[in-house]
């Protein structure tokens, strides 16, 4: 076994451990946020096992995990057993495999150990030139898990839930892609670490350069991760569960972990594509020449940014009511896709004529690009707000009254 393999294995273990812990503790954070927003205190009882030490309820994920392990793994008699068991595996595998291409830091400084190549990039598959495509392809595999779960459950509610969710997930793939193509065009690469480096070099995060793309991408990513207000795959109260109605115990947990991983992926992508990844002005530097301080600072900055995005997701959950399904679709096709197309065209033109623009202004500066981009964003936003239902109004109109009972019955 070469050192390269060993290092890759270490990275995989670190990533998997980190992700699973993060997923478990984000459940706790989500419950805390839910409680605090509703003026409650939230979980604060379970602490260190077998002691009376409460420790702010940090033992709660452990208790939840134990409970899930001891729950009966029940499959109803009428389901298609094989597909029923495969569905959560598919969805979780895809959700985890995405992280192979996602950098969870920059590079480590030279270790100066015999045989160890340096620098070591904090990325499971370094130099993967199609990173973005890989991430995108795997994130759309979630649809298969949803459909499999709903279909194999052999239950009309699960099946309808699965159709609903897959329609949503597939629809929002399009604005997701449109939002991201702008970034890819501008960076000229599909490698996530290269996209971060490009932002770090120029010192201008993409969110300032293409706010419209950020908006479209963030909304679509929220929908892809099935977070509120787009959580129609789950919608536990009013839509009779979703595709995972028949699941229980560990298999349900796999679905839930996958959903949390999707949220973490969405946060990672938003931070990497639009908020400069590990870059922070005056703290983490730009190039690949790192000391231990900058290497660790980069990881911390990335983690803090991701946590902030995740917390925003959780706040949004308690801010907005859930969309109705037709509103959800109208949002995707009538608002997000046009806005994404505008962003795509503007970015394509700007990238094409960047040099000419720089010649006119006289400097290699990004300011003219940012200015044009913001003007276009505000213009497109106003047009969308005035002519398209950005706010989806569902007041009953006299026109749309179902029927006139007296005339209908006579």
């Amino acid at each position, binding site marked *: 076994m070469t050192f390269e393999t060993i290092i890759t294995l270490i990275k995989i273990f670190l990533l998997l451990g980190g992700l699973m812990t993060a997923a478990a503790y984000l459940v706790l954070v989500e419950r805390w946020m839910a409680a*605090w927003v509703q003026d409650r205190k939230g979980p604060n009882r379970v602490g260190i096992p077998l002691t009376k030490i409460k420790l702010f309820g940090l033992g709660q994920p452990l208790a939840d995990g134990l409970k899930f392990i001891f729950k009966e793994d029940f499959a109803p008699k009428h389901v298609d057993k094989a597909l029923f068991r495969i569905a959560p595996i598919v969805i979780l595998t895809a959700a985890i495999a995405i992280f192979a291409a996602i950098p969870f830091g920059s590079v480590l400084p030279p270790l100066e150990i015999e045989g160890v190549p340096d620098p070591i990039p904090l990325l499971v598959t370094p130099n993967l030139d199609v990173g973005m495509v890989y991430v995108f392809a795997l994130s759309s595999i979630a649809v298969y898990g949803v459909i499999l779960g709903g279909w194999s459950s052999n239950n009309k509610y699960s099946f309808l839930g699965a159709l609903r969710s897959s329609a949503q997930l597939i629809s929002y793939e399009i604005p997701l892609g449109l939002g991201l193509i702008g970034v890819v065009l501008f960076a000229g690469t599909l490698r996530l670490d290269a996209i971060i480096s490009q932002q770090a070099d120029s010192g201008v995060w993409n969110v300032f350069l293409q706010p419209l793309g950020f908006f479209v991408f963030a909304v679509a990513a929220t929908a892809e991760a099935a977070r509120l207000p787009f959580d129609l795959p789950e919608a536990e109260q009013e839509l009779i569960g979703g595709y995972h109605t028949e699941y229980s115990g560990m298999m349900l947990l796999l679905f839930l972990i996958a959903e949390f991983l999707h949220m973490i992926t969405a946060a990672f992508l938003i931070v990497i594509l639009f908020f400069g990844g590990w870059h922070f002005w005056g703290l983490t530097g730009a190039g690949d020449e790192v000391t231990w301080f900058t290497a660790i600072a980069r990881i911390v900055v990335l983690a803090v940014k991701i946590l902030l995005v995740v917390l925003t997701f959780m706040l949004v959950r308690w*801010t907005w009511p859930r969309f109705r399904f037709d509103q959800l679709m109208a949002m995707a096709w009538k608002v997000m896709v046009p806005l994404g197309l505008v962003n795509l065209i503007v970015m394509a033109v700007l990238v094409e004529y960047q040099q000419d623009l720089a010649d006119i202004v006289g400097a290699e500066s990004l300011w003219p690009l940012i200015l044009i981009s913001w003007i276009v964003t505000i213009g497109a936003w106003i047009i969308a707000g005035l002519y398209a239902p*950005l706010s989806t109004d569902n007041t009953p109109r006299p026109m749309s009254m179902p029927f*006139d009972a007296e005339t209908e019955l006579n």
Partner: protein
Amino acid sequence: MSGTNPNIRWLEEPKLGLSGRMYLPLFVQGLTTTFKHLVGPKVTLSFPEERPQIGNPLIYRGVHRLNKDGTGRVKCVACFLCATACPAHCIDIVAAESPWPDREKYPESFTIDELRCIFCGMCEEACPVDAIELTSLLDLTGRSREEMIFDKEKLLSVYDMTIDAEPMKSTALGGTL
């Protein structure tokens, strides 16, 4: 119901202004409200450690007690009015001839099934001698079903527990002693 019924007045909700149609101001407004609650004061009570404040213990309907009279005897005269009034049929009284000269009957046994009780307070209303009362004890727990069936001794002990904090209502209301 018809959409054209003249008796129905359709209310139009106010039209969204420009900032409303731009969506973002409203979104930020909503997030701000949510965020305020995130850091605002909490209303939760950590129950076993913190006791809730009961507004007026005299009208709170908690665990029952059987009142005693001035000489320490049970006040109940076994008239069965409470058992008759009880909608949950959780009161069971066995009456016997009273050993005391001032009344004819007394309850030989008096049991309340607290698991069936709905704490409606009708027994308290029905009692002509104010013998049964509901206290403000709210944490009624037990480890078995048998433990939750309160007999006469237990109900009288509830009286001893609570009489200092909650005087008999009848004295305050001018009833019998």
